[in-house]
């Protein structure tokens, strides 16, 4: 990895990374799992494994990324689903048994499972 030697190089790297994030946002299904200690204690690890299993079962590809704690302890485990060019929708208290329906209805069907939805992560956050 090349070391960053100046402010200009850092800005260039920032723009490059922003471009890559933007591209992923436009092209990929991205699943975020809150996996801080709090999320893991609430069962995020099992939920994450279930997501991987269910995606594999359906031969779907998605970028799965773990994130820290967004603060809603009471709704852990938290899982966000972002379809290409769509808002990042957060689901709360996602148990492994709920994963299949979220994948089928939201990721495949394009319709969020409204009864489990918490909110949309603001784009300017």
């Amino acid at each position, binding site marked *: *990895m090349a*070391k*960053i*030697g*100046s*402010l200009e190089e*850092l*800005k260039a*790297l*920032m723009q490059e*990374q*922003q471009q*890559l*994030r933007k591209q992923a946002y436009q092209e990929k299904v991205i699943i975020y799992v*809150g996996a*801080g*200690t*709090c999320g*893991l204690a609430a069962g995020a690890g099992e939920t994450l494994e279930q997501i991987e299993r269910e995606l594999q079962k359906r031969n779907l590809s998605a970028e799965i*990324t*773990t*994130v*820290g*704690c*967004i*603060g*809603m*302890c*009471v709704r852990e485990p*938290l899982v966000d689903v972002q*379809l290409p060019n*769509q*808002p990042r*929708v*957060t689901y709360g208290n996602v148990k492994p048994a709920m994963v299949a329906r979220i994948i089928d209805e939201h990721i495949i*069907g*394009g*319709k*969020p499972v*409204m009864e489990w*939805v*918490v*909110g*949309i*992560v*603001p784009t300017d*956050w």
Partner: protein
Amino acid sequence: MENVELQQDQVAIPTYTELPYYRKQVRIALRNCGIINPQRIEDYIARGGYLALAKALTEMTPDEVIGVMKESKLRGRGGAGFVTGIKWEFARRSPARPKYVICNADEGDPGAFMDRSILEGDPHSVIEGMAIAAYAIGSEEGYIYCRAEYPLAIAHLKTAIQQARDYGFLGKNILGSNFNFDLHIKEGAGAFVCGEETALMASIEGRRGEPRPRPPFPAVSGLWSKPSNVNNVKSYAMTPQIILNGAEWFASIGTENSPGTAIFALTGKINRTGLIEVPMGITLREIIYDIGGGIPGGKKFKAVQTGGPLGGCLPAEALDTPVDFDSLVQAGATMGSGGMIVVDEDTCMVEFAKYFLTFASAESCGKCVPCRIGGRRLLEVLTRISNGEGKPEDLDEIEYISRNMKEASLCALGQLTPGPVMASLRFFRSEYEAHIYDKKCPAKVCKGLITYRVIEENCTGCMVCKRNCPAGAISGEKREVHYIDPSICERCGICITVCKFDAILIE
């Protein structure tokens, strides 16, 4: 077609900023937590990470950095609330070399997890803040003192430090300047007193974690007797944003004397527990009811404890107190590091104070007498009261011991250990008096002062309580009224939970 449907559905999904939980929050230290992958430095960079360090190194002198920090009036988020910029200036002016930058991540308050969440969710913000501090005071080496009970935080920190080295944000000639800085992690063994800065530094040196008198302050003589700057995780995490957006921006948030945001771990008897970041000056009522959603089960709010086991509780009358360093102290509590525990009417305030006192006195390092002996004596008095053996002179005794601990203890642990007891005595004196004079626990919690009794009219003689009683305290035949023997009863409450006929009461 599918996309169109999705758009229509989403009209009904609120964005976070429309949710009551987030509406009043302002995220500065938590801006990346839960948003980015904390183990990918590229995610941090994409959100402007390390730009503040680059700005400081290439466009600002160390004195200018300190100037911005002083102007922003950021006060140390560890609890004491000392102005960070002034602390940095003291360390900068110390002539001795080398100097050290230390991050206090020894978060130990029961129910507190602010620092852990930042370290786990956005470790680079802390690293960047520490590097800026190092540049400002003239240090080349830093330590993060994190408790070993936070394995995930330590793992994320280790990954982050390595990534920062790989990109050249730590190491030699950072960003083409001639500034060098690198970081170590010191895992603490979990002694609460090691959150006190002089004990913390002793622990890094490999000595027993015991505090020493100040002065000399760490800025003059700290780690290995060299000038050192110790700040909390949250203070460092806010630093890059202050450098990037300017002192004026930061000072425009919050109140005049406590600018910026406060981070709280909201726990206890509250509907929406969680980690929140709010502008200083918000009221306790807004936090507990608007953000936290109030008390579950239709119960009544009784008190809120801020500042953890060294803080204090405030009653319902204080709910409109603005949350900032000075107002909370004035009201009788403290800001502390950010624990906020809400309790409802079912909590006994004597028992509540006793809980914190048990914690704090067990964590006394034993070096100074007022803390070592005072804490123990105070706990004896409180135990006596909650057992129903309290004497009328006990309340004066509590005040006497507390005053002496406060004035004579070596460090904040001993000085503040009586805090929760003093606050609960101040606001809930009648509850102490009920324990002492009437031998009653108004919240029906203290086991020495309550009796479980069968309500004869309701009891059907179903025998469920008798079968479930682990102490064998319940007698009675089938279809006959049962009896609980108070001399055998352990007051565990299992009979109440299993009885289907509301036939057991506590008195």
